[in-house]
């Protein structure tokens, strides 16, 4: 199998993966625009995945897969024509270009395609020091470390499952503005599931890490052991956990993982497609104050090594750190090309797609609530009875702004102290209320583990969320009666 060192991933090498030349691209783009339209675009992808699974004390399964394909898009007004194929033949791409132009009904005549110019991303946010993929022997060693760390953490740990995924996604974007640009994106994800048993009670703990790095990063930072330890600790803690009380109460978000609340409650509704379609409650709130003064929310695809980062977005735009809410005021939206054009706003580099077979959409990357001035202990001390939200499974938001998210682990706050561990808690609220109800923001900004993904309209993309310790005056907690 071919190994790729950071040094060989030149833009040229990525472009050469695809068996076409400039004349071919010109021909495909001309075909796509032969009835008109303001943009024709070729998205080429070649991704290799390597997967390793350890269970029952053995390296049980390995998998290697190749995803290759081309997505052809024609934009005319607000319409998108799209076609894709996984056959890298000129004929297949020309046929796709014809299918993509089907949305254009009245031919205004040929649109000229300017000469294609290869450009490059300005920065790389990927940390590649070793080969991608790493050698199977190195991967097995790391996976075993995680597995046995979890299994040997405590006699109550009865079962462990560890999986390691490496992915290397190489993409090229060629469009009728004359752009040719490539990106070669590494990704690693190491996750551990640990099952603990006590009597008839059984609980599962999860942990994981990774990001836009190669295997040597995990090794260097001893992440294998840490992940195994954390998964075991969570499972053990849950054995002691009680059902949560139900009802309205103050909630403190633990630093890092609590960012998913902002992602769900606020981030999605600031994606510009929902703004231009007026389906988001924020569509008419640009420049308005919607949150408490201490609330600043940022989406930044340029944080080195993070899962949500990229050197170009999936439309070839350079990514930008984007302020969404600044000191309580709505200041920006996450844009793709179509939404930016229709709203008359600048591009932010947030047009992302799951793969070649999907249309790009405005998406979050690494989203976080910026830090404030309170010490975390001070925040917890301010609460007589409340909930400390520690580990998050994920959440969902409705157009109405109502959101829910699930905690796999939480703790009761009583008289300013963390007390009983709680399990399987659901929080539900309404985003405008929560934004106003954020009363204290800590100075301890942290990020979730590098294993998160976000789904929208059937497309999943890697993301990271972050926040410091945050106090929310009240939320509805769902638990047992």
């Amino acid at each position, binding site marked *: 199998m071919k190994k790729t060192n950071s040094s060989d991933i030149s833009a040229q090498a990525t472009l050469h993966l695809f068996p076409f030349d400039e004349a071919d691209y010109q021909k495909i783009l001309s075909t796509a625009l032969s009835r008109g339209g303001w943009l024709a675009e070729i998205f080429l992808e070649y991704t290799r995945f390597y997967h390793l699974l350890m269970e029952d004390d053995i390296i049980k399964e390995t998998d290697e897969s190749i995803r290759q394909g081309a997505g052809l898009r024609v934009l005319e007004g607000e319409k998108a024509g799209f076609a894709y194929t996984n056959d890298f033949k000129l004929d297949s791409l020309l046929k796709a270009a014809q299918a993509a132009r089907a949305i254009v009904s009245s031919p205004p005549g040929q649109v000229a395609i300017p000469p294609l110019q290869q450009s490059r991303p300005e920065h790389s946010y990927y940390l590649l020091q070793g080969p991608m993929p790493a050698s199977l022997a190195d991967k097995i060693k790391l996976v075993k470390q995680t597995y046995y760390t979890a299994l040997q953490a405590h006699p109550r740990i009865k079962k462990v499952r560890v999986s390691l995924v490496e992915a290397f996604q190489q993409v090229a974007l060629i469009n009728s503005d004359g752009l040719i640009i490539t990106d070669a994106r590494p990704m690693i994800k190491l996750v551990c599931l640990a*099952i603990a048993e006590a009597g008839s009670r059984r609980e*599962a703990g999860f942990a994981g890490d990774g990001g836009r790095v190669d295997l040597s990063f995990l090794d260097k930072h001893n992440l294998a052991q840490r992940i195994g330890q954390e998964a075991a600790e969570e499972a053990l803690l849950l054995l002691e956990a009680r059902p949560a009380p139900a009802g309205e109460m103050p909630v403190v978000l633990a630093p890092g993982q609590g960012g998913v609340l902002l992602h769900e409650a606020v981030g999605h509704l600031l994606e510009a497609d929902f703004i231009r379609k007026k389906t988001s409650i924020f569509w008419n709130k640009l420049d308005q104050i919607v949150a408490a003064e201490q609330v600043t929310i940022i989406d930044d695809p340029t944080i080195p090594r993070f899962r949500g980062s990229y050197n170009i977005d999936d439309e070839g735009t350079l990514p930008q750190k984007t302020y969404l809410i600044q000191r309580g005021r709505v200041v920006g939206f996450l844009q793709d090309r179509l939404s930016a054009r229709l709203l008359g706003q600048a591009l932010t580099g947030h047009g992302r797609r799951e793969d070649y077979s999907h249309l790009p959409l405005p998406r979050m990357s690494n989203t976080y609530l910026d830090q404030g001035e309170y010490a975390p202990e001070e925040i917890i001390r301010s609460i007589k009875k409340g909930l400390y939200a520690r580990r998050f499974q994920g959440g969902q938001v409705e157009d109405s702004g109502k959101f*829910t998210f699930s905690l796999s682990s939480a703790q009761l706050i009583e008289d300013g102290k963390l007390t009983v561990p709680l399990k399987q808690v659901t929080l539900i609220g309404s985003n405008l209320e929560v934004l106003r109800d954020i009363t204290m923001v800590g100075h301890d900004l942290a990020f979730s583990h590098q294993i998160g993904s976000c789904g929208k309209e059937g497309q999943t993309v890697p993301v990271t969320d972050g926040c410091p310790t945050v106090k929310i005056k009240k939320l509805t907690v769902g638990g047992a009666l």
Partner: protein
Amino acid sequence: MKPTAPPQELLDLATDLVNFALAQGADEVEVAIGQGEEFNVDIRNQEIENLTQAQTRGISLRLIKDKKSASASSSDLKRETLEELIKGALGRLELTQADPWNGLPEVTAPSFPPEKLQLYDPKIQEIPIETKIELARQTEKIALQDKRITNSHGASFSSLESLHILANSKGFAGAYEETSFSLSVGLQAGETDNRAEDFWGHTSRFFDQLEPPEEIARQAVKRTTRLLHPRKIPTQQVPVVFEPEMTAWLLGFLFVCVSGTAIYQKTSFLVDKLGQRIAGANIDVIDDGLLPGKLGTRPFDREGVPCRRTQVISRGQLNSYLLDTYSARRLGLNSTGNASGSGVRPNNFHLQPGSLSPEKIISSLDKGFLLVRTIGHGLNPVTGEISRGAFGLWIEKGELAFPVAEVTISGNLQDILNQVIYIGNDLKFRSAVCGPTIAVEGITIAGN
């Protein structure tokens, strides 16, 4: 009414790859090839928003040698790429370990003839693109005529024609084609800061059986507007009525818990419960891959095991897990023909209907909560615990009184299965997992 014959080149490719892998030293080989032709159109505010057309192919390989297993897949179908993947997989086996339960299933019985299962509608090749666009446009148009509807997420029509080929070194070779058509619309009602949303859609294997635009629009409007101006309610326990879509959601969770994968991994609360009573005597749950024309129907599973009818729960007793070959061997059982390639999948997994109409169920409750949608992630198969955000309608003296939002429901699947007080007669096979309206006691609704 017969589908077209699968392309000979793909059948040959499958056989050639089996032979190539055997020649390279594999003990057992499985090759699956999929081919699809997709169409989708989204209409929003009566204009085309997206129109997608695609043809795709993909191949998956599984190799076993000395009881070790490795797999590979590719959407690049060039012979040299696939041969490299086979060699790479065999190379990796040098460093991995034997698992005594690995192995392909023996071919024991012929599978049901695909043409008798009504999986394919030859009409798919004749429907003009304009008709497809018009169906979506009409659906949205009718929905937007209702004054209470203030915005549209758009209406969509999609069609999919797919071919599945499976060949293995045990001598299995099979292929079938299937079609599906979907029509749906998503709507908003109310003003910006006080909105309700919902959607409705239908999927059918046969174009002529697809619900018409009028029906899709009517349901979508009804579902969206009934949630306008919701109230919060105090935390309490009342009977919860699950609409068929919600029963399907609950059964989806039950499916995870009865799947052989979760059982052997001990990630289900139903481990070691075979033969025991796990539900009320009124509960019968069946998985039936041979129901003609339904969405979860198929002649054989992803390993070539013939699909069949499996009584999973019989009068409250857990009769069978749903298994692929691997999980079956680990548990000392036989495959139930539910292999998906990476675990198990449902083949028309459903709760048997009762005799009451859904109206009768609601009218017989003094107080209750009609659950229409849940959101969030709170399902824990290890313990059976459920905790989700919920939307619904309050039931007062047998009638729907007002919409409710910002509540969560929580309970345990095992308790819920034992506290089903009414089962409706309205089972429709709208998805591969489905059920009728049910009413359940013992669920906590948390509000303010």
